[in-house]
């Protein structure tokens, strides 16, 4: 028997944050389980636990590679890190000299603790063309909450630190119970359900919680704003709103009142396919049984009416006074180490950088600090691309952007693409330089939770395979070559720097694992204190929570929320609906995959081999599709096939396709990308005016049996 130790660390197989105990014997991980002393009290999900098959995976990228043949031909040559870094440095410097720093794009996947490096790197070299999935996931919320709280974060108070838990919870287009999305951990939400009186689930299909909830609203995809506005209508007209909060702390109530008059429950019922009495019931429950909170899912941000949908929901929180009250929506204060964002916001975006942001003239909220991805793609196609060099880390834009066929063509027009990843995949295949990245079990790093009240340590349990590096090291080393004044001697120094406000070194923090501001240390009702504004108030131009947004008005947007039909629907495009009669939504996720990840992890893949689309048995019958059939789903952009699951829990006339799928085991360069990925069907021409979010989860399609398949 050799040396055996148990290492405390933090999982980020998803958005993450579960405390993990990893048993290592003779340098081999022999066990992983949850850490009972962590804020996730010893629970872990299938993804985190199956990490054991991830780190030992034979397909891991081990060495930097350089493209030899044509783009996507799959011919690679192993190179040294020095050669890789030299090439990247030279290409970036050339591009900066020739086209300016904005010609460099830095992209990332979900913001899982390394986004601080992505942003710092980009800003340090003088570009703000950061490409992130944020605009279809979480950023719109942050931006619009920002109009309320200044720094842009409001989270459900699942913790009871103020003495109360939410009495009414709305789970809106979200499955937090299986996703730990945005670092709001499933386990916190689930624990808080023990205290809830009313759970309202808004989802077009049955979920684990919906059929056991107090009220389940099976809404037509893309019509959520109409529901929210009708709920406000009921709450105001029946006098159920929080008078004290509305009178003292909000701005524009009368305007909002006037605006929502057109959204009667009856009218909203027509739009949403709900019953007017259910809309009334939801409104009354939420207004009467307070405190309450609303968990917003990113499906609402994958729609071209996303900005106003979120504004409607935020106004609903406002009129019910569910802001900053214990058990409602709270802007958590960070621990003494400060906001992790400080690591990049300390390098401001200069006016010149701002001018160079692709899409900034059009999408004034979404493309203020980051680029608008779909405009980048269009420019690459049209030959007028600002972006020449693309440095891609931690995500595969080729999978998650709308209209895959266009995206593939566009990316081929890049002058230079560097991609860092753990595995070969569709994005890696078209790169010029490929860098091997490390897994969370192999890194020393700081993990920040989106709710921002704590940071956690990733402690290295084993060394990365081959010559793989952690993302922070990749950025530090490239950064040192291009903008040395902003970068560090080594990763440990960089970690020390990020912790210095809390008077900690990395070594201290690594032992501590969790550093949090919880319990009594959180202050509620910040608007009644000097926290945001001397003498109390909100950090807005009027000092009030703006139901009527003066900020949006200044930017040229409607200051009051409204409902708009999705770009494609039986209402907005009736002719198209004749050929494509079904509603297509592409938000189906499985608890054992995370976005495009883990289809190559054997245990996880065993839970569901093929991508599945859910369809109501009655609808399926109409189109001759039986349970288990492969079926084509076709939209005006193309067609894909997924396996049909006849599911009585989904609205009739709606097709729910599994998102972000490819087949890692199939040959490159595409790895089956065009076969089943619903973004082949999605539309990048119709985007939200504020955020630029395209219609991904409310479109039209038709379905038919794939005759050639069993």
């Amino acid at each position: 028997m050799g040396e055996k130790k148990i290492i405390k660390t933090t999982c980020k197989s998803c958005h993450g944050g579960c405390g993990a105990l990893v048993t290592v014997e003779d340098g081999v991980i022999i066990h992983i389980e949850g850490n009972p002393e962590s804020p996730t009290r010893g629970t872990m999900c299938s993804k985190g636990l199956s990490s054991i098959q991830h780190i030992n995976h034979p397909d891991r990228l081990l060495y930097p590679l350089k493209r030899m043949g044509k783009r996507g031909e799959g011919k690679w040559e192993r190179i040294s890190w020095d050669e890789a870094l030299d090439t990247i440095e030279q290409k970036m410097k050339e591009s900066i000299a020739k086209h300016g720093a904005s010609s460099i794009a830095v992209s990332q996947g979900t913001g899982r603790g390394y986004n601080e490096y992505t942003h710092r790197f980009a800003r340090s070299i003088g570009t703000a063309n950061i490409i992130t999935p944020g605009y279809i996931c979480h950023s719109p919320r942050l931006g619009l909450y920002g109009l309320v709280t200044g720094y842009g974060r409001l989270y459900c108070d699942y913790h009871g630190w103020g003495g109360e838990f939410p009495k009414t919870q709305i789970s809106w287009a979200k499955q937090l119970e299986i996703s730990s999305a945005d670092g709001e951990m499933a386990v916190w939400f689930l624990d808080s359900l023990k205290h809830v009186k009313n759970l309202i689930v808004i989802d077009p299909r049955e979920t684990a919680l919906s059929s056991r909830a107090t009220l389940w609203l099976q809404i037509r995809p893309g019509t959520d704003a109409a529901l929210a506005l009708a709920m406000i209508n009921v709450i105001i007209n029946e006098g159920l709103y929080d008078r004290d909060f509305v009178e003292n702390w909000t701005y524009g109530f009368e305007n909002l009142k006037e605006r929502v008059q057109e959204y009667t429950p009856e009218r909203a019922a027509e739009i949403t396919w709900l019953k007017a009495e259910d809309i009334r019931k939801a409104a009354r429950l939420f207004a009467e049984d307070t405190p309450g909170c609303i968990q917003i899912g990113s499906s609402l941000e994958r729609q071209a009416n996303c900005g106003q949908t979120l504004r409607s929901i935020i106004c609903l929180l406002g009129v019910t006074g569910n802001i900053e009250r214990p058990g409602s929506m709270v802007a958590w204060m960070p621990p003494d180490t400060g906001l992790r964002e400080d690591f990049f916001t300390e390098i401001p975006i200069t006016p010149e950088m701002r001018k160079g942001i692709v899409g900034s003239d059009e999408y004034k909220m979404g493309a203020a600090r980051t680029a608008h991805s779909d405009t980048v793609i269009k420019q690459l196609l049209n030959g007028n691309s600002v972006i020449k060099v693309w440095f891609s880390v931690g995500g595969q834009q080729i999978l998650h952007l709308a209209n895959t066929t266009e995206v593939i063509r566009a990316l081929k027009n890049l002058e230079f693409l560097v991609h860092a990843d753990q595995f070969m995949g569709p994005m890696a295949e078209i790169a010029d330089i490929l860098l091997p990245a490390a897994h969370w079990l192999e890194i020393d790093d700081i993990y920040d939770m989106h709710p921002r009240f704590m940071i956690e340590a990733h402690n290295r349990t084993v060394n990365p395979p081959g010559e793989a590096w952690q993302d922070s090291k990749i950025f530090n080393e490239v950064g040192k070559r291009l903008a040395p004044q902003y970068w560090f001697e080594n990763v440990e120094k960089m970690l020390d720097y990020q912790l210095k406000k809390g008077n900690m070194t990395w070594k201290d923090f690594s032992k501590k694992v969790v550093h949090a501001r919880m319990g009594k240390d959180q202050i509620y009702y910040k608007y009644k204190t000097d926290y945001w504004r001397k003498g109390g108030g909100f950090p807005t131009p009027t000092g009030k929570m703006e139901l009527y947004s003066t900020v949006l008005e200044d930017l040229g947007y409607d200051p009051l929320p409204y409902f708009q039909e999705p770009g494609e629907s039986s209402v907005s495009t009736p002719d198209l609906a004749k050929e494509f009669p079904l509603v297509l939504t592409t938000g189906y996720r499985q608890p054992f995959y995370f976005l495009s990840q883990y289809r190559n992890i054997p245990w996880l893949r065993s839970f569901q081999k093929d991508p599945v689309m859910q369809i109501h048995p009655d609808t399926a019958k109409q189109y001759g599709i039986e349970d288990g059939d492969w079926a084509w789903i076709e939209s005006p952009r193309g067609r894909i096939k997924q396996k049909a699951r006849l599911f009585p829990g989904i609205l009739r006339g709606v097709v729910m396709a599994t998102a972000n799928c490819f087949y890692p085991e199939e040959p490159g360069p595409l790895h089956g990308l065009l076969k089943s990925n619903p973004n082949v069907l999605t539309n990048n021409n119709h985007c939200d005016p504020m955020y630029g979010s395209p219609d991904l989860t409310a479109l039209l399609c038709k379905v038919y049996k794939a005759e050639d398949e069993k």
Partner: protein
Amino acid sequence: MVVDLSSCVRCYACLAACRIEHFLPMGMSWPRLIELETGGDNPTVSTYSVRCNQCKDAPCVEVCPTGATQQRGDGIVWVDQNKCVGCRYCVVACPYQNRTFLSKDKDKGFFPGIVQTDFEKAGKKLYQHQIGTTEKCNFCAERIDVGLAKGLKPGIDREATPACVNTCPAKALTFGDLDEPDSEVSRLIREKGGFQLHPEYNTDPSIYFIDGKIGQVEATKIEDRHQKEPHTVGVGD
């Protein structure tokens, strides 16, 4: 064990926890998730996290010709792999289909024909999986025994509690002693109308299921904000 159908969120964590705990070969899964659908205008789906029921009158024990499948004093039914001859009578006898025969093709590695991972190599030394024998959930007997030896209590102390129960984020799985009237499992069965699956099989399973609505109780005020575990009250009617 008690499984709360209204709490289970179909996350598959219990399956993964069991696999890593017991170094299960690729084709093997001891627990399973089974979905039961009801259609109509208010469709519901119930997901049952099932595993060997450790039946009190276990037909698998009865039919085993070699005495490999046996029941301990605490009720756990287990298979002595050294005695099992692979006749598979028990697989047929279990009316709940909770037993799996470990055939050669089920003993596939994680990455067959490519590599045997370090974890699998370690597993070969640490946990026996004999090809040609029958396997099933053993309520993590090894874990329980190690915990008991330390004076810990199954269902209360993690180190004496099954892996799947520990990892469940929804507290859908509760473990404990059915013979103890004050145990949490006994209380849940009593107060929430616990039921066994297919009682007509007459095997007296040690796993009970409960179901109910979420959130039919008054929201709780917490007196002491600093309680480590927030005070919780029961859910459902």
